[in-house]
């Protein structure tokens, strides 16, 4: 007995094959030491040897660390309790006496909890690992303060301190990780060692610790890394799986400067060039085959995704819900490219440049993984200068690339990033591969020319869109409609003009809609009734909404991504939107009336355009038939028509030329139609 007592009092805490450099403080009773020795054995069994060897000699104390003798019942519902602490000066690990009391009940009798490590025994183990992680960090050159760690953990080097950017993170295993980079290191190490799902939920931090510690604590894990994200479009958030094998390329996107203050520097984004998978066409319900992996995927633009840290309505808004949200935190959104182009090129009349990034296959894969991780984990705070779309985008690049010079990049404007990336040869500014998606301004100028018969400049067209009178436009349109087309050529011009009126009116509608969104945003903040509904909407639009397990952290696992109530969420949203519309009609009666009138007029313009287009097509067929009959009467004409019948391209072109190219272009009548027509004669 004396020998056993001597061993317990004098020797370090051990486990099979590994030894923790810990000693109990002399005040700790023998009974407590014996109770805790099993816990420390478990800790020693879990921890990697390289970690244990790097620890200093540590003394263990038991104290009442917070103002309570027991672990509070509401510990998972905001209750406060300090499980343990580490004192770096005296190298002391202190455990809360209440936790030790719980441990005295034995492993089998420990309480379950709904948060963190799910039961108090594992919570005790994790507390010790957490505090030892502090000792490891402080004694080994503070790896937590190295960019390799803190960038992955969502921190950023400030002028003096390393600051947490992920201030509003909700999918966190333990909110304490947000306190500072040391706590972040300890919390994440604790989960790396104890949670077999950590690799799937926080892959980049898992890889960091795996490399650092030289081991994977759970090589037999069963979880599968999720590839799903929520793509935000006007219908809400829709789950979408990013299949890495279908990612052809990643581009840096630069949206040109807008006129508003917050868009004056442009906007930074990325494009993920996805190859279209096999899919159904909604209109025809036919199955369209997948695009083979390769440059052809660049044409699948309706499948491309945009990665954007977007803060509020003034940056590439896709729907007015965002306007109601107001100061939404900086989140990594995934958006359909078509939406983004529609917003910038069409609504805001801003160009977008796409610079292909020269990523290796491995870098591309890390980029996608990091995007998925940030999408679920990151909830920052958008600040115009220090934390904007450009700095966020640059941090993402810094986070994934290990190339020389990347860590030193310091641009804080979207254009600055282009320069930085060009300097590091990550993009080539003058490359032919750079695509520019041009603002629709020129199209509108052309439409104006067709509709009003006058060439105007960029400023004039913007003025027209924003300031022209609805009554004047209506009068002009009615006059136009009443004009008689005296020839086929007149009719063709009339078709283009009718379409042009519709295009201009649509642009005006969208400009008015944008204006109204702004007014709505202002109104929300001062109207209780709207505030309440917008709050509901925020909840309904929440990226976590509908996940089957909202208490989990990081990337949701496959099973948690089952948004079984997706339709219910959509329904709720529709209901809230209807409510808002209803209220708005009472707040903005005049605007509502104008919008409704424009909307009806656009419908009318659409019908009219389609009807005269049909008229033109029929008239063109009659004309062609007649001309062909005339041609048949001559030898040369017959010979030409015979060649046409044989689908001779030259003959078809010759026939078009003969009948008048202006009318007989392929848009008016196709080659096949001409052949059919001849055959019917």
């Amino acid at each position, binding site marked *: 007995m004396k020998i056993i007592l001597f061993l317990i009092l004098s020797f370090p805490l051990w486990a099979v094959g590994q030894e923790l450099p810990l000693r109990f403080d002399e005040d700790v009773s023998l009974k407590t030491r014996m109770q805790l020795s099993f816990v420390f054995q478990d800790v020693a069994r879990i921890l990697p040897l390289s970690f244990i060897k790097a620890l200093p000699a540590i003394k263990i104390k038991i104290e009442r660390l917070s103002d309570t003798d027991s672990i509070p019942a509401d510990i998972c519902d905001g209750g406060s309790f300090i499980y343990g602490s580490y004192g770096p000066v005296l190298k002391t690990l202190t455990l809360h006496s209440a936790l030790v009391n719980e441990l005295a009940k034995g492993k089998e009798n420990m309480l379950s909890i709904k948060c963190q490590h799910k039961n108090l025994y594992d919570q005790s183990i994790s507390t010790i690992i957490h505090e030892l992680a502090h000792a490891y960090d402080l004694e080994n050159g503070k790896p937590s303060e190295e960019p390799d760690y803190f960038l992955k953990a969502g921190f950023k080097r400030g002028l003096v301190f390393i600051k947490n950017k992920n201030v509003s993170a909700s999918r966190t295993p333990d909110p304490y990780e947000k306190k500072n980079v040391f706590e972040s290191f300890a919390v994440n190490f604790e989960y790396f060692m104890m949670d077999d799902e950590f690799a799937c939920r926080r892959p980049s931090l898992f890889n960091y610790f795996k490399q650092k510690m030289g081991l994977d604590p759970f090589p037999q894990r069963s979880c599968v890394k999720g590839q799903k994200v929520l793509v935000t479009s006007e219908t809400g958030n829709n789950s979408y799986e990013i299949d890495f094998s279908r990612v052809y390329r990643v581009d840096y996107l630069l949206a040109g400067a807008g006129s508003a203050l917050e868009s004056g520097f442009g906007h930074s984004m990325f494009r993920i060039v996805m190859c279209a998978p096999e899919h159904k066409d909604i*209109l025809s319900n036919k199955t369209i085959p997948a695009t083979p992996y390769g440059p052809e995927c660049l044409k699948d633009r309706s499948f491309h995704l945009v990665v954007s840290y977007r803060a509020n309505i003034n940056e590439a808004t896709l729907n007015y819900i965002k306007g109601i949200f107001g100061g939404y935190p900086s989140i990594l959104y995934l958006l359909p*490219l*078509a939406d983004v182009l529609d917003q910038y090129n069409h609504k805001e009349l801003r160009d977008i440049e796409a610079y292909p990034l020269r990523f290796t296959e491995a870098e591309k894969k890390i980029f996608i993984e990091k995007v998925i991780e940030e999408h679920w984990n990151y909830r920052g705070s958008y600040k115009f200068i220090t934390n904007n779309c450009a700095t966020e985008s640059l941090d993402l690049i810094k986070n994934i690339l290990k190339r020389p010079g990347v860590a030193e990049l310091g641009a804080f404007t979207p254009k600055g990033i282009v320069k930085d990336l060009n300097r590091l040869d990550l993009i080539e500014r003058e490359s032919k591969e750079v695509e520019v998606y041009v603002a629709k301004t020129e199209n509108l100028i052309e439409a104006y020319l067709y509709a009003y018969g006058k060439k105007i400049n960029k400023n004039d067209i913007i003025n027209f869109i924003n300031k022209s009178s609805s009554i004047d436009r209506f009068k002009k349109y009615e006059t136009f409609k009443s004009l008689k087309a005296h020839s086929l050529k007149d009719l063709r011009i009339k078709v283009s003009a009718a379409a042009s009126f519709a295009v201009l009116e649509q642009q005006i509608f969208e400009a008015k809609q944008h204006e109204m969104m702004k007014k709505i945003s202002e109104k929300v903040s001062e109207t209780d009734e709207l505030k309440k509904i917008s709050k509901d909407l925020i909840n309904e639009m929440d990226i976590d909404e509908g996940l089957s397990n909202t208490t989990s952290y990081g990337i949701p696992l496959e099973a948690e991504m089952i948004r079984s109530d997706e339709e219910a969420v959509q329904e709720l949203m529709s209901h809230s939107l209807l409510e808002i519309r209803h209220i708005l009609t009472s707040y903005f009666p005049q605007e509502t009336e104008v919008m409704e009138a424009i909307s009806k007029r656009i419908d009318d313009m659409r019908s009219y355009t389609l009807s005269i287009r049909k008229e033109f097509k029929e008239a063109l067929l009659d004309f062609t038939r007649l001309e062909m009959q005339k041609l048949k009467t001559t030898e040369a004409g017959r010979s030409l028509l015979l060649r046409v019948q044989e689908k001779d391209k030259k003959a078809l072109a010759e026939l078009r030329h003969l009948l008048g190219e202006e009318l007989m272009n392929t848009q008016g009548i196709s080659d096949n139609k001409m052949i059919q027509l001849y055959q019917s004669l």
Partner: protein
Amino acid sequence: MAFTSTTFDFINVSSHTTFSPTASTLRHKEAAQVVMDVQEFMATGTLSIELEKKINDQLSLNESLSEEEALELLLSEAEMILSQVSK
């Protein structure tokens, strides 16, 4: 109730079916978008991304079609959908 137009909803109607879950309601929006895009093409000669993709899809299903014919096909499908809704 305001904004009952079949084509132009108060919320932006541009349809992006690739990422949208409920195809039934979007079919109508999709059709409206095709008409809008065709109108823009008629006015300016510029094809939108969506329309270009749809034309390519049609061509991949039927190689004998010309681009113009694919566009005609799309437009007539869209018109049919819109006329069904308005009935």
